[in-house]
């Protein structure tokens, strides 16, 4: 079963000692992963309406001993349906007007490995919700946290940062670029949060 197991699951699995129980757990993890990958959660409020509450770091440079920031796991990175919802929002809310299909224009490209304000889920969330000084509007009054998380996961999928199986294939429009599903994972060059 080539459905990807989510990291959390693997970590939990690693702590088990009994091989049998491990196997059983693997199976269940696979199952969960499968459900996760294909689930369609219409009616839920995802974690943290806005990550401002959580520690958010945009600079690698920390005076004194560096605080290790725990990354919020993007609730939808591994969910094909939510990522595609993120895509339709990305287009409907005119993100595509500036960033186009990831190549950029008025705004910077999103499909490359260069991230001005960080590639971590909560950093991307912040960029969308709070806006950024050089022309990025702040969306937090217009979009619900769930929607912003969906867009976050889609934006990350543009450079292949989320699991392949959850990314979009081509859409029914002009073929502008290879679909996210076949975009090579562009390891962020200058993503700032500790990884």
């Amino acid at each position, binding site marked *: 079963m080539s459905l990807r197991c989510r990291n959390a699951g693997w970590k939990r699995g690693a702590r088990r000692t009994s091989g049998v129980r491990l196997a059983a757990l693997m199976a269940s993890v696979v199952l969960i992963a499968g459900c996760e990958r294909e689930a369609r959660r219409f009616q839920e409020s995802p974690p943290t309406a806005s990550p401002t509450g959580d520690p958010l770091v945009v600079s690698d440079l920390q005076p004194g001993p560096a605080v290790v920031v725990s990354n919020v796991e993007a609730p939808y990175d591994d969910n094909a349906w939510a990522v595609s919802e993120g895509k339709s929002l990305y287009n409907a809310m005119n993100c595509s007007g500036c960033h186009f299909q990831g190549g950029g224009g008025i705004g910077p490209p999103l499909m490359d490995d260069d991230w001005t304000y960080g590639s971590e889920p909560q950093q991307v969330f912040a960029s969308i919700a709070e806006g950024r000084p050089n022309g990025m509007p702040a969306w937090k009054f217009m*979009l*619900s946290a769930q929607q912003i998380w969906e867009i976050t996961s889609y934006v990350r999928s543009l450079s292949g940062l989320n699991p392949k199986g959850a990314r979009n294939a081509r859409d029914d429009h002009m073929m502008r670029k290879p679909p996210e599903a076949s975009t090579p994972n562009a390891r962020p060059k200058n993503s700032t949060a500790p990884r």
Partner: protein
Amino acid sequence: MMRSRLALVILLAACSGRQNALDPASAQNRSITALFWAMFVVAAFIWFVVTVAFLVPAVRQRRTTREDAEPALELPAETSRRQTRLVSGATAVTVLILLVFLIYDFGVGRALATHPARALTIELVGHQWWWEVHYADPDPSKIVIDADELHVPVGQSVQIKLVSRDVIHSFWVPNLIGKRDLIPGYTSSIFFTADRPGVYRAQCAEFCGHQHAKMALDVVAHPAPEFSAWLERQRAPAADPSDSLAANGKRVFLSAACSKCHAITGVEAYGTVGPNLTHLATRRTLAAGTLPNTRGNLGGWIVDPQSIKPGARMPSNQLESRDLVALLAYLETLK
């Protein structure tokens, strides 16, 4: 037979309603219904005859032959000749009936295919999961954009231009006319002439995803003058709210997410992702024929649409109760 007679009764009883193919409200559907009844009666008769034909020999002879009885392989020539005659006769009758049906159907088909040169043109755009309605006009500033409700004049031929921007939907008003699919990449048309005022319910008839079940459309047939009056009203932009509460609601509408997806003519809201709300208060239903248009339903729909139409594109909106009340007050002014 018993059961079928019962069924027939139910069928006859079920021959009226605002979403019923056998309760015609248009010239076109009258002819279709006539065709249906003709075929139904003949079919019922054939079924009856066949049933009798095989039940008689079955019940006639209760005494069963012994299993190992040497089968009489050769029938008397006269019997087999009679059988041959019967079977070929029955076949001939079948062919004849089919031929009649065929010709009848072609006739009706031709009747439906012919339509007057000048017809009121309405463009219907299918979305997941709601209907966008454009009342065409040579003068662009007179085009009316509405949603989830289709108004037509009685006695005038109407051309519905069908367009889809996402998946295949199907337009079907049982009382007025049969189906026509809205297929991405194709623009097709369907014509009908309502001959009886009333409200008829249409529902998307091609599976189109999660909310296929809740993608309905009320078709309102007015007398011609009433229709043009209605159209004129629709052309008017939204009036500015008079009372402060509604005015406050307008502010909420513009500052909250609403105006990013919904348009209101005369207000700085031009969103095209969701239905146009310029005359929301005049509509009979909400969420594509899912809820009656009442204040309570509207509030519920705004706050938690996902429990009403799971998967719909409308997000749930966390609004201060104050703002919600004001917003509702404003939306109710959109007459």
